[in-house]
């Protein structure tokens, strides 16, 4: 689809979907690997509020991590996606070879669904 891929313009902040097309967050950070004289390459993608907070200010990340220690629904502050999991890059989104429901990106979604939404009548149409 792309003639060339700009890392910040076309990858960072892009919508991620899982193997079934379920939206599972955005690319909040991109981490490069620098290995001696070899060419730098993208090592992994990062997801999570902590990553976003760090982009604003290192202190914002510290605050967020402190909040997390009190209320931690998410198992890890940031989710790491190895580049090998990238299945497809389109103009619309980036598809990952993962099941969103099993990733930390869905920890909050799952927690809120199980503890709040599913307790409210009418949250599923088949009921």
């Amino acid at each position, binding site marked *: 689809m792309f003639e060339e891929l700009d890392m910040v313009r076309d990858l960072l902040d892009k919508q991620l979907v899982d193997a079934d097309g379920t939206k*599972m967050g955005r690319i909040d950070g991109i981490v490069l690997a620098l290995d001696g004289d070899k060419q730098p390459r993208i090592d992994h993608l990062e997801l999570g509020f902590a990553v976003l907070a760090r982009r604003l200010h290192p202190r914002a990340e510290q605050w967020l991590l402190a909040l997390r220690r009190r209320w931690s629904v998410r198992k890890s502050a940031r989710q790491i996606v190895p580049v090998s999991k990238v299945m497809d890059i389109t103009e619309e989104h980036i598809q990952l070879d993962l099941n969103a429901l099993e990733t930390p990106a869905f920890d909050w979604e799952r927690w809120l669904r199980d503890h*709040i939404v599913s307790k409210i009548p*009418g949250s599923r149409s088949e009921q």
Partner: protein
Amino acid sequence: MKKAMTLALGILTAVGGFFDIGNIATCVQAGARFRYQLIWSMVLATIVVILLIEMSGRFACATKKALPDAIREHFGFGFWLVPFLILTVIHILVLGAEIGGICFALHLLTGYPLQVFALPVAVLLWVFLWRATFSAIENSTSVLGLITLCFVVAAIWLHPPTHEVLQGALPSMPATNPENYWFIAVSIIGAVIAPFLFYFYSSGAVEDNWDRSYIPVNRAVAVIGMGFGSVISIAAIIVAAVVLAPRGIRVDDYHQAALMLIQVFPYWGYELFAVSMAIACVGAAIEVALSMAYTFAQTFGWNWGEDLDPAEDARFSLVYTLALLGASLFMLVGVDPLKLTLLTMAISAAVLPFVAIPMLLLMNDRKLLRDAANGVFSNVATAAIVVLTIVLAVVSIPLMVVGGS
């Protein structure tokens, strides 16, 4: 036929976002205090809103992305964070004002105080959002919204002086009270060009699966939908000018506004006004609550869609749930709905550059839009709109302080 039905999105956007509590307040005050003299500001606002709605729809058709989604993606999280936070505050304020409008309409019909209705109204709106699909919301609101045509019927019935109405379509200086004149002019523009309109409309186009083949439909929807809202609003100015202005009613609260239809509909004019107000505000409240949920979900990349069950997009559904609960507090604690509306209009006029500038940039991104990108005409128009929004941003809050009474 299916594409003809998509007019529902335009009418919904118009009934909800265009003719809502802010418009009722500003149009009725404009007519009551300055007769036909402020029609020009509605005409100007209509042209601007048609252009911007057309662009946000065209963007969604070409990219299958709504605006909040695209803004975060292309300008980055750091750029988007501040407008996002400001818009969140505005969403809550506007939602509070719309809930206020519904409560006030119910108060007009029953005589009970506004506070009584705050929570029941929030819960009913929530039930609708929790259970209904997007097309059910579109269709019911756009059909019920036709009741607001009663203002048009009244405006024709009253035979306003044609030349004065047409003169009002061109800007002129007021004879008295210029601060208030300019304050109302800016409020009308701020009420029509509500920031959430574009986020809602482009998200709705994505919900309705619009693609490039919908670009001409989108143009028609923008013109007809927004035109519909505009005609009703101008009719409201005219009715207020004929009925309220000669009696010296300045409309310092909504009770006085409710009298405007009685001359034309003597037996049920009062009830008709209340029902129109309630429906317009229900449409708007639903639109604002959804717009806030869309903006959150797209900013963070959550799964979203009004057609999904709440259990499938828990975070999306909880955003509108919390927004409705939070916004109902304004009426619960007894904030005056008219004051809340006017404050909200001034603040939302102040943030319009945050909406217009990213839109101008995105609409010129040929890598993204290819042949659907803005042409010369749209760009000149948008550049003019950006200048207008910056002027509004600078003057709106000072004008509210000097002229807002």
